[in-house]
């Protein structure tokens, strides 16, 4: 006999796991995160792999073990969580909306396609991005800035990041583009922010003062303690760059964020991050290398080692939290903040949808890592953004076109993964691009670790949430639902 529709329930996706004796449930589509008691865990077992269920039967089965009252309350809580839903309710598809393009708001200027370091893993081919070494001219930088401004919506804010190669090798362009962008933003009543990513070896006190006064976010690339950094990040003329970086950062008194590239030659992420925290960086972020070169890119054993280090760092993070301090390991901090907010993330990033990167030939690309790759070119300074090409690219590279993401429990924490990595892993010119299974397993381990760490913090150091970033209290209110 068919189940009457008012009685029929179906099960929405969830990810349930046990960790250190705790039973945790993460709702895939809403990203709600809860801890289960005995009846809830039993209900979950009942729901696993189920198709359509009759509500009364579910309650009854549970009542046999836990009593009617408990069973009813448990079923209700799953209904509230949208894990057990009426069969006639439309499925939640977080990213079902058609893809539209809006004005780009962020520009990464590759002001120097050259670098004074020679890091073997550099995806930019020592700043050359597959082309000849070259500096952007101030005129071109200003035209790129104008190109960005000319397509902005009224009141839209602007973000300009200076990138390279090594941007400090071309400071005249940084000054020119900064002054021009700042003046235009002022004239048009826009807020503007600047950032620069540098290896810091050319940093001076004057420059540091300029960056501080103009409120640049300064990101320093450094790979860890001398033995690691100097092997991976040699100076152009030979010799390591570590001493120079640390000395420059100290004497210039810059407040900088450290950004570490992890390679298979440097997988001890715990030692690296701990070292940089001790060296005084207030924020330390790590990123796996993406060079397309087997000498540097990770194999499965390397990923396992990295995860081990990440795990050790979560212990540090919890220890710090118990003392009331936020640990500077920014990857984990962000992930924990994301879990706290519980907002589904439809896209990995703003590449091509809000972000563009400009090079010294006048070309515009989807993001700073994709500069020089024809498939990701979205315009030119002479002709502006190619709206059609851009929309096509946005559509093609949207995570919804990546088959594995559709069945992934981490879909809305992950956002669908970096397009650059997906493209490297797919080794094909045409979309869709897809991140390799092994790397996604690594990503999912990481997201699970984030959930676990969050659950530990909720238990052992809940006061820390008030110190974590973001005005999350404005979101997630019941009335906002």
């Amino acid at each position, binding site marked *: 006999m068919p189940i009457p529709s008012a009685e029929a329930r179906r099960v929405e996706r969830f990810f349930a796991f046990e960790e250190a004796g705790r039973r945790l449930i993460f709702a895939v589509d809403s990203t709600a995160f809860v801890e289960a008691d005995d009846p809830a865990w039993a209900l979950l077992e009942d729901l696993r792999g189920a198709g359509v269920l009759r509500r009364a039967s579910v309650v009854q089965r549970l009542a046999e073990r836990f009593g009617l009252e408990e069973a009813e*309350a448990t079923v209700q809580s799953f209904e509230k969580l949208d894990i057990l839903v009426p069969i006639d309710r439309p499925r939640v598809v977080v990213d079902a909306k058609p893809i539209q393009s809006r004005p780009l708001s962020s520009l990464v200027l590759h002001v120097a396609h050259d670098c004074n370091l020679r890091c073997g893993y550099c995806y930019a081919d020592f700043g050359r991005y597959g082309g000849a070494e070259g500096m952007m001219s101030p005129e071109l930088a200003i035209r790129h800035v104008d190109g960005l401004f000319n397509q902005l919506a009224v009141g839209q804010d602007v973000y300009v990041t200076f990138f390279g190669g090594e941007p400090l090798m071309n400071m005249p362009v940084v000054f020119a583009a900064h002054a021009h962008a700042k003046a235009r933003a002022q004239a048009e009543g826009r807020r503007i922010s600047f950032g620069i990513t540098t290896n810091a070896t050319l940093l001076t006190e004057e420059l540091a003062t300029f960056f501080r006064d103009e409120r640049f976010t300064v990101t320093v690339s450094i790979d860890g303690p001398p033995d690691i950094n100097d092997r991976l990040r040699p100076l152009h003329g030979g010799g390591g760059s570590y001493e120079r970086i640390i000395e420059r950062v100290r004497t210039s008194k810059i407040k900088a964020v450290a950004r570490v590239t992890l390679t298979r030659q440097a997988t001890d992420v715990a030692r690296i991050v701990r070292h940089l925290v001790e060296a005084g960086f207030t924020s330390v972020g790590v990123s796996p290398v993406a060079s397309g070169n087997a000498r540097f890119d990770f194999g499965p054993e390397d990923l396992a080692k990295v995860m081990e280090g990440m795990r050790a760092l979560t212990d540090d993070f919890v220890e710090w939290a118990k003392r009331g301090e936020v640990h500077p390991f920014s990857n984990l901090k962000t992930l924990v903040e*994301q879990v706290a907010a519980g907002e589904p993330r439809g896209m990995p990033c703003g590449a091509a949808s809000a972000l563009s990167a400009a090079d010294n030939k006048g070309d515009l690309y989807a993001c700073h890592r994709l500069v020089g790759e024809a498939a990701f070119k979205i315009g030119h300074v002479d002709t502006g953004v190619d709206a059609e090409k851009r929309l096509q690219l946005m559509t093609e590279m949207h995570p919804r076109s990546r088959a594995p993401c559709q069945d992934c429990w981490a879909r809305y924490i992950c956002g669908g993964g970096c397009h650059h990595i997906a493209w490297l892993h797919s080794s094909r010119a045409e979309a869709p691009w897809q991140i390799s299974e092994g790397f996604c397993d690594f990503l999912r381990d990481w997201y699970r670790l984030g959930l676990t760490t969050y659950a530990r913090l909720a238990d052992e150091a809940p006061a820390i949430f008030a110190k974590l970033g973001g005005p999350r209290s404005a979101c997630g209110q019941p009335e906002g639902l």
Partner: protein
Amino acid sequence: MAIKPLNRKAEALTDRPMEDVRIYSFGDCCPGFLPGWEVGANGGVDPCPWQSDLPACHPCYWTAQVPDNTTYPQWLDRCANISQDWEALCTVPD
């Protein structure tokens, strides 16, 4: 309580009265870009803390992250003046 909400989304969902549950009421709350991107850690909008942009570029963590205009092209529509209306950003308009 059968389940203990751990994050804010779970709290919001379980705080709903039971009669709301049948209504299709899934909250698209700032999805796709991390809130804090446009608002400072202390709730202010100026200076916009670039630290919050930094790690959001997933998983590359360069300072170039921007809101998800693809999934939620209208995310800014309710904000004539972002420094005053940013709270309106909370719910993405339909």
